[in-house]
């Protein structure tokens, strides 16, 4: 048994499929074991639409509460925001905008990745 760093990679747009919310749930889940693995949530491609500040987070509120407690980082890829014409002013306060280069580094730094 060993603590792992896990990148939760949310790529699909909300709300047409459940992948966004199940990914968010998995991020809480991977930290729920004996080892308390460390998740990081990365929104990219159409997944970045979930980062809009007016998005309805009702079905994931409990997960966001957990992230606060765990200090989980929530990141969105700038290039993917730009491609969709989304500005930082439109994003929720808890989202950190990172470069594609930094996202690449996240893949290298984490032990595992899960795509949703």
């Amino acid at each position: 048994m060993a603590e792992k760093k896990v990148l939760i990679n949310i790529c699909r747009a909300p709300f047409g499929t459940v992948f966004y919310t199940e990914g968010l749930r998995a991020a809480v889940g991977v930290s729920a074991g004996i080892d308390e693995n460390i998740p990081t949530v990365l929104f990219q491609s159409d997944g970045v639409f979930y980062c809009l500040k007016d998005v309805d987070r009702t079905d994931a509120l409990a997960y966001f509460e957990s992230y606060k407690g765990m200090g989980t980082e929530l990141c969105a890829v700038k290039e993917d925001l730009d491609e969709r014409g989304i500005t930082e002013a439109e994003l929720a306060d808890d989202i950190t905008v990172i470069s594609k280069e930094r996202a690449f580094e996240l893949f290298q730094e984490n032990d595992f990745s899960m795509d949703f």
Partner: protein
Amino acid sequence: MARMAIMLTEGPWQTENYEIFARLAEAALDKGHEVEGFWYIDSVYNAIKHQKFPEDVPLPVERMKKLVEKGAKIIACGICVNARGLEGGKEFIDGVRVGGLPDLADMVSDADTFITL
């Protein structure tokens, strides 16, 4: 021997993922590795007995049964199971255990590689 964990998120008969799961898991087992599967979202339907299909093709559940017999450990997400009215997996084949996200966490901790399908 090493340990492979595979998270499956798709059900049978809709996407190819259950077939990929079966092929990859079988190949790993045949090489003497341990395989653990976490079945999430619609993939829990793969475990239901009584699957029928008009043509003579391998049923998803039969392929999964073979993996279990070869030693694969499979855990189905309990919230996903009950959300779909599957009543704690009472119609599941033997060897597929209904669990929870802490099982996923332990699977992650113990795995040497992690694949999502």
